[in-house]
């Protein structure tokens, strides 16, 4: 009886470790600290990330030239002007074309590479490092290097094509050829990175699924399409969304492919590879600082990005339900 009596209070006492009453300071620390720790992120992000993005919508409703003192409200006039501009539609078409040409082969290739890397290999680390090497190189460096490789007269790629009897291609001059060249730059920089992301996801797929599939005689390709892809679908959705968002803002590759000067900003002499980001830059920072108009461009880009992301998201979900 006495034994039980002494035993019962012990756990109760253990639950209240500090015998002294908790001070106000202690409770303040316990409840306020978390907010204090996440505050720097939210305050800085709201100030320099979200606020400018939202304020873009407001600026876009004004005739807002940087060098003028008055910024009269003009409603949707900037948008009307924008939608009537053939150069805008040209830039939108180029952007979507480059997005598809760079993203679709890139992600398929990355999936295949990740699948290969996921098999038992010697020199795993070496191969992974090699995959990531292009991603360490800056966008500017990539664009400069590939502009040389794709050069019309002295480029290595044209020399190889010449040796193969295909003939030289003026990569910059054509719409399709310039889009291919720019897409190659994007693919070169991002394929390995995405392969590593896929590999990370593939490694959390249970091994015994593959083992039983192998016993059932499923080929490697079948295992990729029937087991791996369904299992890592969230990661695939994530990479497609990120690639879409990134791809629609492509700037450095076309700008530097066009030589960095005026011809770079217009995306070639015939605007054959001017993207939306270049169009924005042209109006915002090279053509009299038309901030109202450039803001309208930015806001339209934002809408395009949201629509493209939503469409891609729905497309990929569709694939899942049909398989």
């Amino acid at each position, binding site marked *: 009886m006495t034994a039980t009596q002494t035993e019962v209070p012990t756990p109760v006492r253990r639950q209240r470790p500090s015998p002294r009453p908790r001070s106000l300071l202690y409770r303040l620390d316990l409840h306020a600290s978390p907010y204090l720790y996440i505050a720097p992120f939210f305050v800085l992000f709201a100030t320099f990330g979200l606020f400018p993005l939202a304020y873009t919508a407001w600026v876009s409703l004004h005739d807002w030239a940087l060098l003028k003192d008055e910024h009269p409200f003009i409603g949707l006039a900037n948008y009307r002007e924008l939608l009537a501009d053939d150069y805008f539609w040209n830039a939108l078409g180029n952007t979507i074309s480059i997005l598809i040409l760079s993203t679709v082969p890139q992600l398929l290739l990355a999936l295949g590479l990740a699948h*290969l890397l996921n098999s038992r290999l010697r020199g795993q680390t070496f191969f992974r490092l090699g995959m990531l090497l292009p991603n360490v190189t800056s966008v500017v460096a990539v664009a400069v290097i590939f502009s040389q490789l794709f050069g019309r007269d002295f480029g290595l790629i044209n020399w190889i094509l010449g040796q193969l009897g295909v003939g030289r291609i003026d990569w910059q001059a054509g719409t399709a050829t310039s889009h291919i060249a720019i897409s190659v730059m994007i693919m070169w920089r991002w394929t390995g990175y995405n392969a590593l992301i896929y590999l990370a996801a593939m490694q959390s797929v249970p091994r015994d699924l593959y083992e039983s599939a192998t016993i059932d005689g499923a080929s490697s390709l079948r295992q990729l399409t029937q087991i791996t892809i369904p299992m890592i679908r969230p990661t695939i959705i994530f990479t497609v969304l990120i690639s879409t968002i990134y791809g629609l803002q492509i700037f450095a590759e076309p700008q530097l492919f066009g030589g960095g000067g005026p011809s770079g900003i217009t995306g070639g002499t015939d605007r054959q590879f001017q993207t939306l980001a270049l169009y924005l830059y042209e109006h*915002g920072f090279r053509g009299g600082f038309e901030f109202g108009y450039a803001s309208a461009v930015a806001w339209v880009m934002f809408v395009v990005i949201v629509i493209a992301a939503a469409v891609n998201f729905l497309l990929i979900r569709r694939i899942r339900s049909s398989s």
Partner: protein
Amino acid sequence: MRAFATRLRTSRLTYLTLIAVLFFSAFPLYFSVVVASQDNSALGKVPPPVVPGANLVENVRRVFDTVPFDVALLNSLIVSSTITASVVLFSTLAGFAFAKLRFRARNAFLLIIVATMMVPTQLGVIPLYLMMIRLEWTDTLAAVIVPALVQAFGVFFMTQYLSEAVPAELIEAARIDGCATHRIFWSVVWPLARPGAAVLGMLTFLGAWNDYFWPLVVLSSPESQTVQVALSALRSGYVQDYSLSLTGTLLATVPLLVVFGLLGRQIVGGIMQGALKG
């Protein structure tokens, strides 16, 4: 026996494919060394040169004569280091709160973080530029540094890292010993966070070093340019001087390649850790 043979053949094909991919990964970088070490007349020859020449030193001298590349390197170093220190500190603080502290609306805040990773903030460039004019920061490094002081990816990354790296019992024990939260952070969490923080630091440094669009917009004079903007200036001459611009490219890339050579394993591990698991 047959199964063994098939496996052997597949794996040989696998190796061949991967080696081909490695070749394509490395070749453009190798080729930039080739071009950077030739003079321009050699580049016009048929067939084009595929081995390095002897003109590298001369080309490096020309780069430094054309743009203040040393200033640009220093600027990039200042910008990238400051951003890295800040992102790592704030991400670890927030990651600690998300991973180990209980507070109201925690999940909602975390959801906002993940969502903001997808917000194309680059599109806010016009108002951001107006802010910089108001603050009188245009053409100064502050304009590049301050907007990049925090990153949603960093918070997400450290939250993931710390939720595994720090046992809950350790924090409980520190509380029972009467530690205030900030002491728990510095004495318990920070030492355990260091490997993850190092990876995040490297990724952030790479990103900041390679950033181009915003620095191009907001930095105009040669004295304030970062390396990437200086490279762009090298490329924008009236005559396409490939050996000059590729020498600049090489100079800007070599520091990163050195870092990559030393710490590449950790960078690969970090990217795979930060990935959304399927």
